[in-house]
């Protein structure tokens, strides 16, 4: 079957690549944006000193945000809530979904530590009212409580709630909410750019054979195959 795709040689491709001018300041901004959004304070600080790139957010606020994230990741949910409220009391007051998720995490931690009575009391006092306000919260609450029913939690249908990944999920949500409240975008730009690169390559694949990047970690050009 004859291919109607255009063939672009490595030489031609590299020539075209060289003709695209990208400013150093822009790539620096991308790196800084990544470090800041993900919360790598020290790296951001060092990068600022070395490259002269200004972070688009006050580095002090990153420390606060990272403290919150870490507290959630360690399962210290009450501490995390207090810290968020110190940072910005509006976040949890105007975000019922997030607040519920944090309260749910608290319940999970109580169950994980075998504090059954406390867990039930907590569920009744704090979470049941949320369930009354919102049908989907009620369903989530029931799922969480059902953890108490199973003796072997590693095998039960809702076992994933006890997994560390649940904490990380909540931590990511919290991080995003704090960033948004600081009028900062919650996603770093770099991963989106990489996604766009892969998408563009997929599109071009339909029309041409060209040196493409298959391994993002080294960005090496691989020769076009027919």
């Amino acid at each position, binding site marked *: 079957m004859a291919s109607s795709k255009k063939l672009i040689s490595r030489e031609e491709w590299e020539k075209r690549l060289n003709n695209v001018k990208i400013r150093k300041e822009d790539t620096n901004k991308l790196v800084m944006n990544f470090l800041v959004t993900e919360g790598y304070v020290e790296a951001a600080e060092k990068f600022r000193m070395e490259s002269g790139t200004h972070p688009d957010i006050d580095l002090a606020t990153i420390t606060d945000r990272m403290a919150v994230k870490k507290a959630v990741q360690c399962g*210290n949910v009450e501490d995390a*809530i207090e810290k968020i409220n110190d940072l910005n009391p*509006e976040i949890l007051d105007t975000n019922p979904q997030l607040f519920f998720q944090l309260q749910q995490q608290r319940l999970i931690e109580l169950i994980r530590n075998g504090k059954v009575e406390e867990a039930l009391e907590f569920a009744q006092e704090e979470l049941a009212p949320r369930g009354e306000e919102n049908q989907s919260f009620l369903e989530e609450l029931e799922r969480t409580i059902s953890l108490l029913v199973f003796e072997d939690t590693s095998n039960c249908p809702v076992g994933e709630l006890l997994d560390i990944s649940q904490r990380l999920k909540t931590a990511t949500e919290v991080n995003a909410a704090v960033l948004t409240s600081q009028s900062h975008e919650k996603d770093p730009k770099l991963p989106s750019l990489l996604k766009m690169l892969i998408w563009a390559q997929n599109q071009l694949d339909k029309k041409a054979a060209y040196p493409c990047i298959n391994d993002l970690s080294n960005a090496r050009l691989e020769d076009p195959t027919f």
Partner: protein
Amino acid sequence: MPSATVNKPRPSELLSRLTSAEPEVKVRALREVKNQIIGNRTKKLSFLKLGAVPAVAGILADSIDDVTDNNNCNNDSNNAINILVQSAAALGSFACGFDAGVQAVLDAGAFPNLLRLLANPNEKVVDAVARALRMIYQSKLAPKYDFLQQKNMEFLISLLNSEKENVSGLGASIITRSCETNLEQKALFDAGILRKLNSLLEGGSLSQRDASLESLATIFRNNPEVISKFAGPEIGRPLSSIIDLAKDRYPRTRLLACMCLIVIRNASPHFLQDIGIKTKLIHILLELLDDPGQVGDEAPFAFSSLIAQKEDLQKLALEANAIDKLHHHIKKGSLHPRRYEGILLALDDMCSKLESCRSKFLSLQVLNLLADALTDYNAGVRAAACICLKSVTRSIKNLSAGYFMNETIVIPLVQLFLDPSTSVQVAALGATSNIVVDFTTRKSIFVQCGGMKQLVQLAKSMESSVRSNALWALKNFVFQADNRLKEGVFSELTASLLSSLIRDPEPSVQEQALALVRNLVDGCINLIEFVFAEDGLILGAIGRQLQCASKAEIGIQGMYALCNVASGNEFHKEAVMQLLFTQMGDKNQSFVIKFLQSNDSRLCTATVWTIVNLTCPSSPGAPGRLEKLRNAGIVSQIKNMVNDPCVDVKLRVRTVLGQSMAFGDN
């Protein structure tokens, strides 16, 4: 080890700690109160009941002068700062999205103190206070801000000029909440506020942009003068920044920008009228329906404000598959009630005028969907479903085919007649009024479902809007219905009820009652007996009401009712004559003359029709009646109308005169 203890002090214990003399204890207690209530409506309520708000407001008031400069870093000043910050934050949380909390904060006298603290040297204090005030201004209960006072305008400007987001955001919130009249809008414009807001649009942060959009929309609302001053001389430029924001990456910004553009469109015929912007707005709003949060809940309402009463936009929206998309969202189910209500109302607006939209909607087999909405637990949703149904049932094609007169719809609709909410009742009656105009033989379904009896019950309601709408539905129900149905309605209503409704204190009720009689006696001579039942109760009521009709519509319906009676036999015609003339006793003019001289041609037509029936040559008593009418000056009045500009009047006048000449009269 993760700590997840639940050992919290009881609320009453916390409140007593608030009164402690030790500042550190106080700060900790304040912080604990704050942390317990944030996000937790139930806790806010219980703390409220324990008197927490006055307690915290009191602490704020006591500490107001404790932080005088920003330089002290000792323990005492730290405590003082923290007391102010935590108490302001707690008050702000009580006020956040919770009207009872807002009221409590205002009642506790905290408002003036919070305002004062905006000038505090400490940044954290100002931040917390500004946030608390912003929460208050998001509520309808916020105190009205008097923009027309110079001092207040200056203060507002200083807020907007602040670099702190919470403070400039407060300025914008005050405008959005309090600016109502054209005068206030102009005052804000004259003070240069619009320029300031525009600069926040272009250079501000996300929250500043959003706040500006809301404030701008408030200032533009129904004020074409301010809009044109804003948009030109640099024609298009400030508007183009708003148009750009309609394509912003954040959904909330897109929604607020669209809402601002819609306000501009609706207020001023000069701006944003080209098809490009119309199409863009439609597409953006339809796409915003996909947002899972509050933005998606509010999007359909914005869509409604764009298309309501505007056929051109409804057509464009139809072409953009709006109906399919709205339908798709309802089908998904488990909707937030606000969103559900909004989508139903959007569908109502789409179907309000265009048959093409109704056809499209009905082609999607939506009866079950609407029936579900009619039985929703939320009153707003039920009312919206009825309103939507009313628009959809304007489709004459489908009405004639009897599409709506089936149990799927009629049963839940009739149940809504007993709804605890008056607005739901009235909306259900509105939809019913259309559905019962059924040209097939299936009206009996409505009786079987108990609908007719319910309507009669509602005609006795304490609410006048319910009474008049129930009568409207009955009027439509008996329109060209068969005798058996009409007799059923009449025996359920009874002559005494109907006559008292004709004499109801509310004009709208009187009008509908008279129209109901008109439809009842129309068509068959036997039915005319209704008005003579119980010693002519109804006929008498009609006569008395026509004598003192407060608006033309009452006269029109009453005269047509008499006209239908006068189409009967001799006895009927004589009874009408007696009615027309009995009232003349102590008045120098019969209401007949008054009606004939009216500016309202519909009233003239109805009156002349009655005379036509009274003087129709085939009845033996006609000459005698004609003589009486002539003597009362009615015939000469009619002669004067022989060249009336209204065709209906002219034709009927000529009929009367033709009939009178048959008796050898000139």
